[in-house]
């Protein structure tokens, strides 16, 4: 049945209202759709006409693959599989539509309404006439079916253009804005559930992603690192390629462990992670940092702790899941397919030296005083960590 669709109408909601900048958003969307379809078996062209984008299959193609790919393009609010026919007269059109309705809706105990649009103004019937005459033809063909002009279960769309487009299904897209329309941000990616979701959410607003991961061999394994690379690849399916900076954090972590009070370890560690991530962010023109922090989830994510880590940042820190409950974050992780990878049981460097009772209400004065104990070697260690960064492009 699905091979009757040779084209898709792409609906986009939000970018339709962007005024004079609209073409920028539309062009970005067209280019993202093209990118997404590159991996799909088949040939496609993507056309932009007034206020709408059409994807046309130019060869045989895999319908499910195409839908999966389109559903990952930010900016797409809906995907309508189109039945396209040549205009060979209204009688033929009625026949085609009735056949279409029959195939699509085996159960006729339902309601419908015809929405027609006459873009080609020389078509002999007005849109009002198409609505009425087509409605009548359908009612005659299927006695069980009823018209409901207020709340129809099936909205049957008929667009008269060069060809005639028939569609009634809208497959929801992810929404958001096309990647590349907002700028770039640096995601602090751990192996957990939250940070990939945070990256996804910001990318959904059109933001291009870069990422930084901190590993601590031998306290974390090569497999833990591989897991983060795998997570970056999963997010990249939506966001496009992600440049992943892998920073060896062991020496810094041990130095802090050595010099600072144990219960402040996590906070001070996170402050240095932010500093390093910001360094890479500025270096590559990122306009902000992204973290998966959520208020109160763990000791290092209380309001006081967040304030303490935030203090070292000079560019905005975006925390899209800040007010989400864990389950809400898990739901998104499942939806975007990162959950299964996130829960693989490898150590991440935050958990190894964690104190039994870490501070939950760090005092900035105290933290700053503790950090002064690091003055002797920390700059050198930071420099070494930054210089020895390993870069992987996740795509």
């Amino acid at each position: 049945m699905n091979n009757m669709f040779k084209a898709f109408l792409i609906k986009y909601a939000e970018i339709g209202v962007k005024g004079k900048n609209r073409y920028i958003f539309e062009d970005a969307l067209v280019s993202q759709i093209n990118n997404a379809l590159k991996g799909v078996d088949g040939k496609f062209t993507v056309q932009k006409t007034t206020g709408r984008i059409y994807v046309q299959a130019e060869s045989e193609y895999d319908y499910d693959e195409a839908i999966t790919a389109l559903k990952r393009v930010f900016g797409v609010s809906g995907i309508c599989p189109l039945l396209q026919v040549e205009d060979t007269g209204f009688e033929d059109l009625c026949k085609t539509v009735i056949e279409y309705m029959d195939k699509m809706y085996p159960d006729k105990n339902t309601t419908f309404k015809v929405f027609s649009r006459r873009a080609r103004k020389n078509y002999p019937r007005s849109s009002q006439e198409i609505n009425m005459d087509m409605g009548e033809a359908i009612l005659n063909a299927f006695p069980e079916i009823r018209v409901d002009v207020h709340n129809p279960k099936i909205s049957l769309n008929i667009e008269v253009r060069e060809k005639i487009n028939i569609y009634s299904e809208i497959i929801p897209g992810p929404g958001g804005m096309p990647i590349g329309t907002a700028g770039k941000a640096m995601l602090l990616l751990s192996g957990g559930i939250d940070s990939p979701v945070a990256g996804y959410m910001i990318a959904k607003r059109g933001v291009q992603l870069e990422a930084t991961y901190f590993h601590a061999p031998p306290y974390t394994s090569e497999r833990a690192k591989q897991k983060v690379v795998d997570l970056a690849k999963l997010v990249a399916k939506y966001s496009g390629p992600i440049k992943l900076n892998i920073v060896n954090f062991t020496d810094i972590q041990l130095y802090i462990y050595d010099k600072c009070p144990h219960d402040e370890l996590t906070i001070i560690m996170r402050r240095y992670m932010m500093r390093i991530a910001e360094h890479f962010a500025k270096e590559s023109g990122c306009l902000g940092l992204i973290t998966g922090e959520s208020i109160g989830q763990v000791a290092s994510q209380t309001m006081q702790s967040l304030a303490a880590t935030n203090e070292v940042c000079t560019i905005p820190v975006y925390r899209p899941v800040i007010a989400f409950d864990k389950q809400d974050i898990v739901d998104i992780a499942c939806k975007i397919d990162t959950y299964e990878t996130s829960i693989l049981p490898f150590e991440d460097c935050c958990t190894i030296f964690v104190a039994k009772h870490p501070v939950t209400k760090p005092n900035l004065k105290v933290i700053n005083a503790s950090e002064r104990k690091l003055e002797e070697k920390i700059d050198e260690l930071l420099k070494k960590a930054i210089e020895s960064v390993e870069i992987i492009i996740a795509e």
Partner: protein
Amino acid sequence: MKVYLDNSATTKVLDSVRDIMVKTMQEDYGNPSSMHLVGMYAENYVKEAKNIIASALKVDTKEIYFTSGGTESNNMTIIGSAMANKRAGMHIITSAIEHPSVSNTMKYLEEQGFEVTRIGVDSEGIINLDELQNALREDTILVSVMYVNNEIGSVQPISEISKIIKNYNHSILFHVDAIQAFGKLEIYPRRLGVDMMSVSGHKIHGPKGSGFVYIKDKTKIKPIIHGGGQQNAMRSGTENVPGIAGIGQAVADVYSNLRENSDKMMKMKNYFIDEITKLEGVSVNSGKDEKFAPHIISVSVDGVRSEVLLHALEEKGIYISAGSACSSNKPAVSETLKAIGLPKNLLDSTVRFSLSSFTTKEELDYAIEAMKEMLAKLRIYIRK
């Protein structure tokens, strides 16, 4: 320097094994069941492998069946014999330190209505024979005990166990998981009084996905894999000719100087134990005497987590196993280490070094040096 000391996990394939496998894949690639000449050539490899194995074990060729490895060997013998004998009784005995391919198979049988008794072990990992004697019942149909424990290397007194079982009731079947023992100890199932025995190919320099079972003639057992009736319908499915030729070749090579190689490994092992116990806070759970296999050394390191030590040695090019994989979110403490009564603080601090006949003294010296260096470093940062 790369020092691979994880030979109980898997071993490097021998050149001779690789060569024969390539031959079966590219020249003599027929299906042994085909009636034509190409099929016959392929069948010859299977026959030859069976001959090598049967003569190594001093058993009959019709008592050898090829499988996809140790796990299938254990499943096939345990499930197959339990199902075939359940009218005689539904009680099975095993030990508390079995490999998951046995212990989880036992759990499956419990779900099927069988009753399973697990015999405890002493501090050296040897099963308690009195406990075994007392566990035997009228409805006992099967006893399954591993020959060599995969974590600490303890060797079970198989012959004595067999005598206890057979004296009680001659028709109770005795299965031995010999996956870590084969190729290290001299094993003759008939002399030992073993009815069924499982072996894996990749632990003895053969290919992964290969294995065999010895099943004594006239043993009452049902197949668990059904199909085209290959291997006397005991294990249907087109024979894995490359794997079978490979394991056959590996057995031929290993048995060509089995005792010599075992003695060599034993010397290496004892040297390693002597040296490593000189390090502070290091204790060894594997003994130097005949109660332990010549290739497995379980080492506990007080105050250092096994996973961290493993990755620290990895940085030096030394590859070992963690005694039990433990992470902050999923503790999986080893049943064996618990069963031998290892103190709680060492359960998560135990690693396994395992040797092959190719392991050299230089490699062991390098590993001991690396341990010294890493322990000094890691101990500075023990959990506060």
